[in-house]
């Protein structure tokens, strides 16, 4: 069975870490990740860039609405995610609109990825 582990933290606090503190945390994590990778248990690991870099596409209306910032509602739940490789935000939005047309309702929050480790586990 595959699982996703979703990471939550107070972004203000993480952004207040010094570079050294941040690097120390990442180093601690990568030790655990390396072991998991050797055991073949680790799938992709992603560190998202801050929510200030986020854009949200509300696809519960036609045409969908592009909003700056992260997804802020609490009445909807996180049900899944995509990782796409695009040259620009406009291209990601185009993909999101296409996906949204296939499945209207709710929203997509678009977040640039800062760190991507593909992991070792086979899908």
């Amino acid at each position, binding site marked *: 069975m595959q699982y996703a582990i979703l990471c939550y933290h*107070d972004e*203000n606090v993480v952004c207040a870490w010094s570079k050294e503190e941040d690097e120390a945390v990442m180093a601690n994590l990568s030790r655990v990740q390396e072991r998991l990778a050797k055991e073949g248990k680790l799938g992709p690991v992603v560190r998202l*860039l*801050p929510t*200030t*870099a986020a854009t949200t596409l509300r696809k519960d209306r036609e045409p969908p609405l*592009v909003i700056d910032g992260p997804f802020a509602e609490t009445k909807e739940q996180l049900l899944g995610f995509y990782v796409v490789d695009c040259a620009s*935000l406009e291209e990601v939005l185009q993909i999101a609109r296409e996906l949204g047309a296939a499945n209207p309702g709710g929203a997509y929050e678009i977040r640039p*990825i*800062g760190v991507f480790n593909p992991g070792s586990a086979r899908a």
Partner: protein
Amino acid sequence: MSEVSWIDPVLTSARAQAVAALLRYFRDLDVAEEAFQEACLRALKSWPKNGPPRDAAAWLIMVGKNAAIDTVRRQRREAPLPQEELISDLSDAEASTVQRIDEADYRDDILRLLFVCCHPELPATQQIALALRIVSGLSTRQIARAFLVSDDAMEQRITRAKARVAKANVPFEAPSAVDRSERLAAVAAMLYLLFNEGYTAGASEQGSRLALCDEAIRLCRLLLRLFPAEPEIMALTSLLLLQHARARARFDKEGSVILLEEQDRQLWDQKLIAEGLALIDKAVRHRRPGPYQVQAAIAALHARAHRPQDTDWGEIDLLYGTLERLQPSPIVTLNRAVAVAKVRGPEAALAMIEPLAGKLDRYFYFHGAKGAFLLELGRRQEARVAFNRAIALANTPAEAAHIRQQLDRLAGPLTGKTSATQADRAAAKKL
């Protein structure tokens, strides 16, 4: 992290919001600051025992407010002292009385707090010092060290700045849309100054000064979270990130400046670049161009070039042209000339900067760039004069050292390609 070291970042991240709210209550910077200080002391006592409160800022606001009211009463001797347990021990109070509050509720408070630090009457250095003291919570000693002045001098500077701010009577009502955007612009300019204060430091002072860059970026992100749809704030954040991404590549072991074109691009911080590129991408979608967007777009073109020769100088020339229209200044034209030298050659660049000679006669980069263009044209005698003038005007030893290298090259055989890059010093710094 050690057992209580988690507290520091929590206090730091809650500070702006908490001090901003306390300033609204007490309408006095000193009282607000002391109230927050007191709340932090109590947090250091309470949190290791009880764990962090669910909403640190709300906890600190409430504890700080009560502590300050207590102090005010004590000073006035009007009211009998309240029972200690009624006012101070909030280890359990936050669950019942302190609701989770959204940073956005404090949007105008935080903006006001930042704005009082950039009162137009305050000289730039006082604005930055005040912001570091009030908003960032750096100690006077830390700020003094960053500015290379004595603790006493910095203490005086901050005291004077506070007195001026108190007289300025910044209104506490919610600002109108126009006021809000004016405040945002003033705050953005102050954050840019703060960043540059760190960015222009020489290699030897990098440690304490680079922290100023980090802090400017942190405050920019904070501002952007409060005003997520402001393209100029996105762009300013982007600009700072893209510049800061090059921090590790900007100086050699001797502390000499390494120009943009000669930097080891492997040392550029790709995570900061990714964030910067994402933000400028977001900003330009609004189709409301502004000076920060143009500057960030220029920085983005440099960041996207894997090798110096991949740089799209034609586009950079066009963007500087736009910046000249939005924000005409001889310095912008000087920067544009660097791009023009790449696209149309040093002669065109030289012609472009000649008319600036009067205005920029006392400006280091003007003479540095002029020397480089002249050198490229083989006019060595004139180049030497320009470089000597630049050295005389250098702001830091690193700048002077760099020009000296140019002079050394000038003394050697002319290779034709000596270094077209002195001119990029201006670009390296400003982009």
